[in-house]
């Protein structure tokens, strides 16, 4: 049993790679620079992480169904763009604009969902095409010029709730709602079921088409929200706005424990993943690392997390195989007690 307790420790470490990595990196930068640990800076990290974080929550929904959404960078661009046009030409207020952006994001997601569910085009191809097409549509609207947002939008972006900056507030709301939807609603549990086995889900009477389309709508909504809040911070929308963010969102979700093969992941994971990536970026600024080196270090951190995750997977398969001669705790602890079970069959309606 000694060997197996060591195994269990390794497994415990491997199972919590991202939190361990998180703490290690936090401590590392904390030692490097005292400024890093300032509350102001920590707030800043979370604020910066919130944009990718929101998108990553939506991405988690998609990854849970074993899908992928490459189009969210374009949604982050297109949704605030439409809202910005409406502000400029129709003179609508900030909140209607925000709503409009969200609707645009959901519509975009619905298009993805339609192609994937009804036309049965693979998610990778669908969203790759809408990624290119969506950005094309955006640049066609703006003629590739940048779009400035009026002061009210900036004021909105700089507003605070109980002293907490708006992006963090929205991020917290998105994560909380995402978490509740995933764990407490029928839809959320069906997302997990579909990700585990689509065919079985169909047989079990789940409306899989609705679930699958739903996750892309949610992903579009999260991306649109993220894009709008981000633009409200900087006040200007350029042609490459949000470009490549889909990869950051995927990385954040995967760092947070979501599997590309579906069925595994949760909303809080996206927070950890997004903050981790942002923390590395922020810490590197404090340690005066060349700006161009930062993506390399970030890539390395992501690589390590994925690497340890697959080590864990390999270890688990190995452990699972060894059951012939050493009975596992589970079967020893809880043998199915058929014989001692109470007699009679439950039937809820008397017939």
């Amino acid at each position, binding site marked *: 049993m000694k060997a197996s307790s060591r195994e269990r420790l390794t497994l415990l470490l491997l199972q919590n790679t991202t939190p361990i990595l998180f703490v290690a990196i936090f401590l590392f930068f904390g030692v490097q620079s005292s400024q890093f640990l300032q509350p102001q800076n920590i707030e800043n990290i979370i604020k910066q992480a919130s944009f990718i974080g929101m998108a990553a929550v939506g991405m988690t929904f998609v990854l849970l169904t074993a899908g992928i959404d490459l189009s969210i960078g374009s949604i982050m661009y297109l949704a605030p763009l439409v809202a910005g046009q409406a502000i400029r030409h129709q003179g609508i207020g900030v909140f209607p604009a925000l709503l409009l952006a969200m609707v645009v994001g959901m519509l975009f997601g619905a298009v993805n969902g339609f192609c994937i569910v009804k036309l049965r085009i693979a998610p*990778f*191809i669908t969203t*790759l095409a809408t990624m290119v*097409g969506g950005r094309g549509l955006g*640049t066609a609207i703006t003629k590739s010029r940048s779009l400035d947002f009026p002061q009210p939008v900036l004021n909105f972006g700089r507003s605070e709730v109980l002293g907490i900056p708006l992006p963090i507030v929205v991020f917290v709301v998105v994560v909380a709602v995402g978490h509740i939807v995933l764990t407490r609603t029928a839809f959320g549990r069906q997302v997990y079921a579909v990700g585990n086995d689509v065919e079985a889900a169909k047989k079990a009477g789940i409306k899989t088409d609705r679930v699958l389309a739903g996750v892309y709508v949610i992903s579009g909504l999260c991306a649109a929200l993220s894009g709008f809040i981000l633009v409200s911070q900087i006040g200007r929308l350029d042609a490459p706005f949000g470009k490549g963010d889909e990869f950051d969102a995927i*990385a954040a979700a995967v760092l947070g424990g979501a599997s*590309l093969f579906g069925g595994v992941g949760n909303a809080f994971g996206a927070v950890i993943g997004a903050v981790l990536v942002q923390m590395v970026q922020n810490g590197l600024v404090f340690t005066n690392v060349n700006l161009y080196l*930062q993506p390399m270090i970030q890539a390395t951190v992501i*690589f390590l997390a994925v690497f340890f995750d*697959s080590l864990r997977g390999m270890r688990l398969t190995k452990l699972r195989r060894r059951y012939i001669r050493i009975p596992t705790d589970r079967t020893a602890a809880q043998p199915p007690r058929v014989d001692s079970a109470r007699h009679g069959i439950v039937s809820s309606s008397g017939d």
Partner: protein
Amino acid sequence: MATAEKFSGVEAKMNSQRRALAQSGTRQNARRMLRRLLFSEYFILYISIAYFLILAIFKPALYQPANLSNMLANAWPLFAIATGQTFVLLIGGIDLSQTSVMAMTSVAGAVVMVESASATVLERSPLWGHLLTEEGGVLAGSAYAVAAAVLVMLLIGMFIGLLNGIAVARFNMPAFMVTLVSMTFFSAVAIYLTQSENIRGIPESFLKLGNGDIISLYVGEKASKITRRDILSFITYPALISMALGFVGHILLTRTVLGRQIYAVGANRAAAAVSGVPVKRVIVLVFVISGFCAAVASILYTARLEAGRPTLGENLLLDVVGAAVIGGTSLFGGKGKIHWTFMGVLFFVLLSNSLNLLNLSAFYIDMVKGGIILLAALTDVTRTRLLAREA
């Protein structure tokens, strides 16, 4: 005698066809034709040809020699990368890092061979003063500079592929994440090394690889002086290089043990392993091939753009994966062919070119491209479903 027999056979066949045509309704025949067209593996080629012919009526510029030459020039490097991607898709993987392989090798090749470099541009590069100076790159001026540069580029491409392959095969990491990381990492390296500047001063003999021509035509009025610009190249060095690469890839897949094993790994990895296929080695090799092909494409692009570019290939992902998938290669492994990919590349190049010719502003092109890819994917899905119903 034999020829005559053969000939009469053909004639008999034609006669019988003619009779059949007369007998059955033309409608039924048309439907049969349509089905044969739809189920043919050359479907996308037929579509491309039809598209070309229809568009040619409205836009004569399409078939002007200058445009054709231009289209071909665009097709070759894309075909080289897409060949590599096809290998990875066949085992059910994906290689997002091809673009960074191109950037990385482009920079590395330039650092080896450039004949001069501008201090004002590249001063801040960490290589400045060591590997890169006012006098050029490491082997500047050497007779072997170009050969060495090509070799370095290919080796780096294969090395990055090797790293990807080991991570995927040995450590069971998902190909998407591995190549996503190496995409970020190596394009960052390329940008870091040059501080996001292009390296100019590529030697003339290397440029030949991008623009060297073998068969060229001058189409126009008789003139005493023909400017270089008016001579249109059709068979070029890139054409030869790319076709050779595609041909070797095709032979590798169809005629060798490795090729059959690649299909087997893509179709069912566990069954392949039981049958003695060295699955891990096959996976590693496939990624190495992908890196190699990306490096070849990088050579062609670097020569054509006359600079080592740290952002080379940035926006190519859609074109590469799109071309392979439109040709009929499956994202789930086990299904795909090099000549399908070639047709996909032709379709893509034709599409981009025609959208340019239609005077669509550049902004619309991406939009239409996205739509057409969806459409092409949809026809493929429909075909597959119909085929399944046939069986």
